[in-house]
Each structure stands twice: as C-alpha cells, then as structure tokens.
C-alpha cells in the first residue's frame, strides 16, 4: 500500500497531493533557509497566523459578489493581503517602537489570529451553507483537492523558487552580515522585506496542504536539518530543499496509504524524523560525532598522563588510565610499563621538558601558546630547533627507582 503510494499508483487525488507537497516542501525548505540564517525563523509563525483574517475576508467578499466562496485563488489572494499587512505591522513595531522582535511576532500572531477567529464565527452565522472547508485552512485539507488547486500550488511553488534563485546572493549577504551589506550599498531593509514576502508566498501556497499552523514547521525544520551537514550556505539551501521535498513527498504518500493520517501533520513528523537523524548522526555537528570526539580526547589525555606517571615512576591509580595503557600494550595489568611503554614514557617526559624550555623562552612566545599538554612538539618545531633544545636539557638521565 505504501509502495503504491510512493510510486504514485494510488489514484488521481493522492498523486496530485504528493506532487503538490513535494513542490511545496522544496520551496519552503529553500526559502526558510534564508530566514533561519537571518535568525528570524519565528517570523514565519507571525506571517502564517496572519493569513487567517484574509482567508475569511476573501470568502466574505467572494460570497458578497455572488461567487463561490471556496474559490482557491480568491482565498489565497485574501490571505496574501492580510499576511502582508501583518508583516508590515510587525516591521513597523520593531523599527519604530521599543518592542523587541519576539514581542512583535507574538502580538501580530495572536491579534491577527484572534481577528480571524472572530471573522470565522461571523461567517458561520452568515447563514450561507458554503462555509464548510474554511477550518481546513487551519490544519490543511487535501481530501478534496482539485486539478486547479494543484496547479495553483505548483505554479506558486515554482515561482517562489525562481525568485529565491534570482535574489539569493543579496539575501545571503544580508543574512550573514547586514552591516557589511549596508556598507556595500545594498538596500538591507528592502531585501529583508523581499525575504519575508517570499516566506509569505510559501505560506499562502501551503495553506491548502498543511494549513497555516503547521506551515511554520516546513519553513524551519528542513533548514535546521540541512545546517547540520554543511557549513556552506549554498549547500544548506540545496540540502534544505532536498529535505523539504523528500519530507513532502514521503509524508503525502504515507498519509494516502492509510485512513486517518492527515497530510500536514505527517509531513511535519517525517521532516522532524530527518531532523532527529541529523541531530544524532551528522558528521561534525551531530551528537554522536561530538561524543566520539569527546571520547577520543579523553583517551589521549589519559594515555598521555599515564605515560608521564610511568616515566616518573609513579603508581597509576586511575582505572581508566590503566585500562587504556594496557589495551594499547604500553603497560601490563599490574601497572608496570612494557618496553614500548618505557620508550613512549621517556619520550613523553622529554617532550614535556622540551616544552618547558620553549615556554620559558620569550622569543618563542607564539609557539609556546600552542602548548596544551597533548600536542607533539615535532608538529610545531623543526628538527634543528628540537636538537638545540635537547642540547640545553642534556643527555638521558636514569629514572629514579
């Protein structure tokens, strides 16, 4: 069943939804990346909630004009207008009053959403029997998706993607260093507004599939996921698009394969699955990699300290140090050094002494700064320099018993 869904064999509606969700995921992931890099991820929450009054007003206008209230283009146009108004209000609040951005986001979000709910109840009491479906915009409803709806979503998604590609350079610059961008003569404020406009476009396009509460997830989770894997912004954009598209496709397919699996939440959960995997497994920034790095570091410190103790004839009490020395064949079970162990220990002690001399020498200040108790001195000094230091230390001495 799931396989049928994945290969788009599950009928017309499921195929439409899957394609739409994939396109939406790609454009949301790509657009969201800039928002995330700009550290304004939650602005999308305000924008998406601000669409609700527009949807309701759009419906009312359509009905008042005698048309069908559920015309998707009309409703989306209404939602775009109110999201834009919300966005401008939020920008005005942060630029012209003392409110911080988070308070402005929260204020716009709750007030616009509250107004939307008032309008929803007004529509319910208008006595037109056609309001069914407006609640669907809260959480998305893909059940009755039409060809025309899918077309709107596809064209909207593709247009957003194209626009992002055109202005991605200025947006990247503003995201990383707005002051520098301003100094280069870029209109930072307008680029920010363009970025928000693109986010708004994605939100509006996604209303039908995932709904206004969950579209935020598609804008935030894929970029965060992608960020784990690379430090290059163009690759983050690509990977975020990929993660978003894949989540959209898999989520739509899974929700079509069984009853009672609403599309929007499933897409979000698949997306979160990718995030959780990345959090754990990503090569440098992942949790597993960090744990391994920590363990390797711990191992080096223990072996080094163990060798120094051996060289000075001290007894080792720390069980982990003993175990590590034994496992690397540097010491026997009773804590006595093997031949290799003795050689390595003598070398460690001599290196310590060499470092001591380097650190006492003010001429070598830059080199001395590299001392951390673990670094091999051969990696920072030449053979000649080491030989010079060794002349100051003198020949090998006997270890005190």
């Amino acid at each position, binding site marked *: 069943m799931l396989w049928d869904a994945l290969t788009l064999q599950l009928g017309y509606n499921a195929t439409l939804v899957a394609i739409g969700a994939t396109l939406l995921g790609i454009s949301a992931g790509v657009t969201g990346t800039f928002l995330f890099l700009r550290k304004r991820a939650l602005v*999308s929450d305000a924008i998406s909630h601000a669409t609700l009054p527009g949807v309701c007003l759009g419906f009312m206008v359509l009905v008042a004009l005698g048309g069908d209230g559920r015309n998707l283009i009309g409703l989306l146009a209404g939602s775009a207008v109110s999201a834009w108004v919300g966005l401008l209000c939020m920008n005005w609040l942060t630029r012209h009053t003392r409110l911080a951005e988070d308070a402005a986001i929260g204020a716009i979000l*709750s007030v616009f959403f509250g107004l939307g709910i008032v309008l929803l109840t007004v529509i319910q009491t208008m006595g037109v029997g056609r309001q069914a479906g407006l609640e669907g915009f809260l959480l998305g409803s893909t059940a009755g998706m039409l060809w025309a709806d899918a077309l709107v979503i596809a064209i909207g998604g593709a247009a957003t993607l194209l626009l992002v590609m055109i202005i991605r350079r200025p947006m990247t610059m503003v995201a990383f260093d707005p002051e520098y961008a301003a100094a280069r003569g870029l209109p930072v404020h307008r680029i920010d507004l363009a970025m928000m406009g693109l986010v708004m476009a994605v939100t509006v396009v996604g209303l039908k599939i995932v709904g206004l509460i969950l579209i935020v997830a598609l804008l935030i989770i894929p970029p*965060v996921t992608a960020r784990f894997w690379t430090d290059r912004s163009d690759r983050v954009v690509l990977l975020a698009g990929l993660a978003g598209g894949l989540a959209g496709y898999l989520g739509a397919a899974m929700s079509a394969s069984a009853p009672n699996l609403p599309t929007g*939440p499933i897409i979000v959960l698949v997306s979160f699955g990718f995030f959780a995997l990345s959090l754990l497994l990503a090569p440098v920034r992942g949790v597993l990699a960090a744990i391994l790095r920590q363990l390797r570091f711990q191992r080096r410190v223990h072996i080094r300290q163990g060798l120094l103790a051996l060289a000075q004839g001290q007894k080792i009490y720390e069980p982990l140090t003993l175990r590590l020395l034994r496992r690397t064949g540097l010491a026997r079970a009773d804590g006595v050094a093997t031949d290799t162990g003795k050689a390595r220990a003598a070398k460690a002690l001599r290196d310590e002494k060499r470092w001591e001399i380097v650190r006492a020498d003010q001429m070598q200040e830059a080199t001395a700064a590299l001392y951390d108790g673990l670094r091999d001195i051969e990696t920072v000094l030449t053979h000649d320099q080491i030989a010079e230091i060794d002349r100051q230390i003198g020949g090998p001495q006997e270890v005190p018993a």
Partner: protein
Amino acid sequence: MSGEEFVPLSLTPLLIGTFAAIACALPGNFLVLRKQALIGDAISHVVLPGIVVAFLLTGTISTWPMILGAAGAAVVAVVLIEAVRRLGQIEAGAAMGVVFTTMFAAGVLLLEQTDTSTVHLDVEHALYGNLESLIWLDAVGWSSVLDPVALAGLPPELPRIALTLLGVSVFVWLFWRPLKISTFDEGFARTIGVRTGVLGMALVITAAIAAVAAFDAVGSIIVIAMFICPPAAARMMTNRLETQIAWSIIFAILSAVSGYVLAGYGPLWLGAADAVSAAGMIATMSGLILAFAALWGPCRTRAGAPGPA
C-alpha cells in the same frame, strides 16, 4: 440589562476571561522584558498533544488529567527546546519552532487516530475555547452572589482560574526583587547571590501554569495574546516596572471586558442575530490597545538607544 439576565449568563464568563487575562499578563511582563515572549506561543501549541495523551490514558474528558497532561507537555517542550538548542547549537527561535510544531503535529495526528467522536475534543476547541458556554445556571440575580446553594453551581473554571491568578500574584509578589533585578541585569543578580537559572525556570513554569489554567477556560489564542499584548502596550506607557505592571493589568481587564461585551452584544447592536467568538474578540481588542499605545504611548520609542540601522 437586569441582574437576572446578567448574573447567570455574563458574570461568570466575564470574570473568568478577566482573571485569565490578568494571570497571563502578570508573568508576561517579565517574559516580554526578557525577550522570551514566544514561550507563551510555544506552550499554547504543545498543550494540544498534552490533553490528547491525557485523554488516551484516562479515556475520559475530566479536568485534572487534562490539566496534568497539558502541564506535562509544557515541561517536556521546555526541556526539549533547551536540549535541541544545546545539543544542536541551534538558535533559540529555530529550536522552539522545531519543537512546538512537531509536538502540535503529533497532537493532531493522535487526535485523528483516536476515536473522539463520542467526546468533545477537537482542535478548534483547543484553539479558541468556549468562554461563552461557562454560564452559571443556578443564579437568579445579584442576590445569588451571596447564596451558598447557588454558589455551589458555579462553573468549576472560575475558582480554578481565580486560584491560579492568586498563585501567580503571590509568586510575583514574593520574588519581586530577584525577578526585577535578574530581568534587567542578570550578571548583577548573580553577583548578589540570586540563582538566576532557577528563577528563570520558575518564571517559565509559572507562565506555563497560568497558560494551562487559562487555556482550560478560554482557549490558547487568548493565552498568547494576553502574555504579550497588555505587557507590550504597558511598556509603551512607562519606564518603571511597577507602573508597567499596573498598566498591563488595566489593559488586560480592559481587553477582556470590552472584548467580551463586543463579542456578545456588538453584533446585536449592528442588527445581526448571533454573537461572535469572545476569545477572538478579546485578542483583537488587546491588539487595538497595543496599536493605540504604539502610536501615542509616551514611552513608545527606544529612549537613549540609537535607532536601528
């Protein structure tokens, strides 16, 4: 309007709305100043999975499991946000966005998967509550306010939210000095021995309790609005924290009362037959108050600080 009509039908929702608004606005003052305003937003989203899980475990819609579930979900969310932020080295806003949207999605999915057709549990209810239905049927007029028999029939949300308001006020009153100092200068607070980490957590938990109790009565939309709008509007009126809190309480009461009255009677004045959502109207009124404060408030700009680039 006579007491016979007002007391049973409007007095209790009005009081519940007002208490909920104040209970959220009080901690909201500190959250707004600490730039943690969106905690309220995150908490109100994760309440949904909390109550669904509580329903799955107990099989009934009863109040205490629901409240415990919601509070548990709020704590889980706060811990998860912190974990994602630290483990993944992700900026706080994005970490919040990842966690609360996922938990909300999980809540919606659980709700769809379980058979809730026999009980009244749905997303819309969670979002905008049912303030209008919290009526006091045992009351016959103003005399009932002193009548113990009628008082026993009060909707249970009223004493609950009143108790929460009391708890929140006591928290703010007891910890006033440390809260104030650590909000404005965390480093200084730490040097004089305030345990800022614990205090910050306590503030978030207090906010969560207020949010859950208010949510139970009025839905999550009022919760977010009241956490942010009255304190933000009060911030435009003054530079003193004491005065700001007083203003925020005034604004909270004003939006609750005017919102309820406009929702209940406004459409009738305009000639329509039915009332509109009180929760939505209260949020809208708080937004209008914020707009007025932002346009004409005496302290609306960043005094002393240079304007944004």
